[in-house]
């Protein structure tokens, strides 16, 4: 008296849970008028120094805060706190990427209405973060000149999921004989139309242009909400 196996439709995204939380966060951010930027890159690309510079400079005109994810240590949060902006560390233990629920939990106790910009520094990883929406307005992918011009070709998925690319550590470009045209070409090859900024957090080269871009995006979002 066995029964025949039958096929039933499910059609559910495996990462649906994360997407739901991210969607709720996105709505919260929109309602509070805070512009959220997430940063992804490989380990050692200069994310933290770049973010520290961003926070220090933006703080002069805007209310900013940051969340930073790492497997272990609070070192990055301590460094970022030097900017005087509110910073919280998310330690993931063994998880190789941030998920929306972790961001939601970390924001507990902060009033989003008091912020203009929220930065979320992801775990240093060019693979796993690509699948996890954090509710951000903008995703920056960072590659440094010391990582080679073909990095984008090796990690097309994360570049495809990004909205802006940052080429960092330009102060070292000459020392490593960095080929800017090749790097830019590779970025455009895997993600046509991606806006790219080249800069050095150390010397400040290119930072102004990038900060102006952020300010413009914030105004754009605020203008739409006001309509």
């Amino acid at each position, binding site marked *: 008296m066995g*029964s025949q196996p039958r*096929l*039933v439709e*499910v059609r*559910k*995204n*495996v990462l649906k849970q994360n997407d739901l939380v991210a969607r709720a966060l996105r709505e919260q951010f929109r309602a509070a008028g805070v512009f959220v930027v997430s940063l992804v890159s490989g380990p050692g690309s200069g994310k933290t120094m770049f973010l520290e510079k961003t926070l220090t400079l933006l703080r002069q005109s805007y209310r900013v805060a940051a969340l930073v994810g790492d497997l272990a240590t609070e070192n990055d949060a301590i460094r970022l706190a030097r900017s005087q902006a509110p910073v919280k560390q998310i330690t993931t233990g063994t998880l190789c990427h941030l998920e929306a629920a972790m961001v939601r939990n970390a924001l507990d106790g902060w009033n989003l209405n008091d912020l203009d910009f929220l930065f979320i520094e992801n775990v240093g990883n060019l693979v796993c973060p690509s699948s996890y929406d954090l509710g951000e307005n903008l995703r920056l992918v960072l590659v440094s000149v010391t990582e080679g011009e073909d990095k984008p070709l090796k990690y097309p998925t994360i570049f495809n999921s990004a909205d802006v690319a940052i080429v960092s550590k330009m102060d070292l470009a000459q020392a490593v004989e960095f080929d800017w045209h090749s790097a830019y070409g590779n970025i455009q090859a895997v993600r*046509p*139309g*991606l806006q790219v900024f080249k800069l050095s957090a150390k010397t400040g080269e290119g930072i102004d242009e990038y900060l102006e871009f952020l300010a413009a995006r914030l105004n754009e979002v605020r203008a739409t909400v006001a309509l």
Partner: protein
Amino acid sequence: MHELSIAMSIVEMAQEEAERRGDVQVTAVHLKLGALSGVVKEALFSSYEMACEDTPLQGSRLVIEEVPVVVYCPSCRAQRPLNSAQLFCCAACGTPTSEVIHGKELEVFALEIQEWVHNPA
């Protein structure tokens, strides 16, 4: 990529669906896996077996339908297959495009279920 945690989410999702349908046995899980999903098929197969251990899904099959990347070409005004992840452009006319229509899927789209077969006492 962390295929084991993805596999565990798949097993959890399949179990929930089975329970909603009156405690049936899941004999197979059909998954759509996009080429740009970031998940590797082979790693997922081995992780799936591990994830099913000691659950009602133990012994079930994971059936993976690979979804190739399809992009939208603004010049052709049509959907086109993507030949290479290293060069996002229309396969027909070469126009660069980053608009992905298919290829990021990680979706449980069906389950094969049957009544539990109980051995006579």
